[in-house]
């Protein structure tokens, strides 16, 4: 058979299979991410059916997938929101980083891995999945809840922190050394700040450049600009993901709204390819040995995420049930963790990292949404109410103020 025909057959069968998987998963309220990862594990090296002809296509598609994931993430926020949020939510962001990045780093060192791997694992355990969490909050009808702004601002800080973290990891993994690392970080900081300033001051002008009236031109110009900036950012060692994220932030208003609508199907397509690609590059035979450590890490970091949400919501003056809801909602990890792990895999650091990250994301992304549902059960509410009553009876009687 001709090479292109094989490619078409492979890609077609793969996408169709993913579609069926996603449909089956939705029936159980599962996010499609773990299913795509499993599908990736099943194919490729050491898997059931090796995909050979489409390897190159999938590799490029996966890169576009990362870029689209990040530009869409950027489109969700306006620059004002990011900067405004930074001041009020910075303490929560710092707690989040300390409680969740450190366990990952320590865990990697405990496994006897080097500092590079520790840095990568810290990132994997640090960031929650804004996509999964926003969807879960919407599905559970919690967008109006008092703790929801707290959860969202932790996510915003995480996403913004990634704009600084990713270039550092990219530089460290590329072995540029201390001086090179610092200059990369400098470039990254300057770029991020410059984009934020330009987006706040001239976001309207940039957006006016692209007309909403012509959907085709808008699609091409937004996609083109994103890929171009992502490429330039990668060339500067700032990581293409950050470049794409910044383009998303710079666009605002109706242009951002329409671009979101138009890019969504493309993102769905290529993000699926990305998750499959990540699964593909992991040998399923490597997963069982790391399953137990992954489970331990997942339990540990889920607990620290609950603590993060609890503390952040307490700062915002939310009562105990709301604090627990915030904590439990923050537990799933997802696309960002896979993006970070993907970087590490591409640069060939610690071979056991990829299977560990796969298992870790599989565990958290499946159990996270289930944990988020926990506070809605009657027995859980009863338990919390009893606990609050116990607290109240031990506490000093508070004088009522009129």
């Amino acid at each position, binding site marked *: 058979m001709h090479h292109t025909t094989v490619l078409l057959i492979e890609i077609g069968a793969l996408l169709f299979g993913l579609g069926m998987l996603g449909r089956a998963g939705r029936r159980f309220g599962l996010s499609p991410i773990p299913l795509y990862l499993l599908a990736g594990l099943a194919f490729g090296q050491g898997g059931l059916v090796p995909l050979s002809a489409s390897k190159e296509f999938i590799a490029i598609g996966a890169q576009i997938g990362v870029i689209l994931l990040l530009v869409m993430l950027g489109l*969700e*926020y306006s620059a004002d*929101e*990011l900067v*405004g*949020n930074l001041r009020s939510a910075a303490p929560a962001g710092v707690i989040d980083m300390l409680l969740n990045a450190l366990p990952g780093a320590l865990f990697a060192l405990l496994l006897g891995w080097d500092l590079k791997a520790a840095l990568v694992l810290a990132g994997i355990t640090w960031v929650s999945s*804004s996509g999964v969490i*926003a969807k879960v909050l919407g599905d559970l*009808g*919690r*967008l*109006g*809840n*008092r*703790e*929801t*702004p707290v959860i*969202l*601002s932790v*996510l*915003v800080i995480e996403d913004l922190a990634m704009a600084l973290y990713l270039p550092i990891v990219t530089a460290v993994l590329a072995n540029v050394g201390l001086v090179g690392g610092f200059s990369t970080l400098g470039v990254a900081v300057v770029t991020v700040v410059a984009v934020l300033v330009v987006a706040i001051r001239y976001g309207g002008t940039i957006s006016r450049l692209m007309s909403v009236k012509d959907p085709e031109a808008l699609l091409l110009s937004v996609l083109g600009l994103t890929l171009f900036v992502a490429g330039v950012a990668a060339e500067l060692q700032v990581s293409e993901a950050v470049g794409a994220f910044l383009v998303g932030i710079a666009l605002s208003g109706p242009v951002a*709204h329409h671009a*979101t*609508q138009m890019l969504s199907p493309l993102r769905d397509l290529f993000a699926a390819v990305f998750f499959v690609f990540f699964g593909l590059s992991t040998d399923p035979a490597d997963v069982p040995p790391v399953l137990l450590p992954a489970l331990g890490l997942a339990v540990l970091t889920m607990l620290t995420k609950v603590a993060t949400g609890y503390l952040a919501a307490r700062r915002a003056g*939310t*009562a105990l*049930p*709301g604090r627990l*809801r915030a904590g439990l909602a923050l537990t799933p990890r997802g696309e960002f963790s896979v993006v970070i792990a993907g970087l590490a895999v591409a640069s060939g650091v610690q071979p056991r990292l990829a299977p560990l990250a796969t298992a870790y994301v599989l565990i958290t992304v499946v159990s996270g949404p289930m944990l988020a549902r926990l506070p809605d059960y009657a027995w859980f*509410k009863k338990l919390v*109410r009893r606990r609050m009553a116990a607290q109240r009876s031990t506490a000093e009687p508070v004088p009522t103020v009129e």
Partner: protein
Amino acid sequence: MRVRVEQTPLPGIGVRHDLVTSSGRTVGVVSHRNGRRDLVLYDVDDPDACLASIPLTDGEAEALADVLGASLMLGQLAGLRQQAAGLLTEQIALPAGSPFVGRRLGDTRARTRTRASIVAVLRDREVIASPGPAFLFEANDVVVAVGTREGLDGVTAILAGDTDG
């Protein structure tokens, strides 16, 4: 008293407006950036959590706003938007136990006693403008009256049967 509406930004989603009613319940609206909006009602036991989140289409939201803001609309219809200082328009619901259910408007002697005028009656989403003294009240009628603050309070008291007439 003016009601205080609190606005909370929801990064990446939109904005939430909420207000606490005088009965102590919290009601809010979550406006999504993509134009979707949800009406949210909060739990009495756990005021941090919303009990129900009801998505409203543009048309539904508009209809609800019309119903809730009917007094404003009526003010415009009557062309009486507080042209004169101290003159107010108010909607007064006829209480279920009002002595005037089934009786004539003239029996209230509202204008003579309070110097406030009943300019319209709302019944089943219909406006009955300038009802005469022979107009018969029914349960669930809403009376639109124009007058001074004291006058309107007087009409409210009369319709409630609080004054001996």
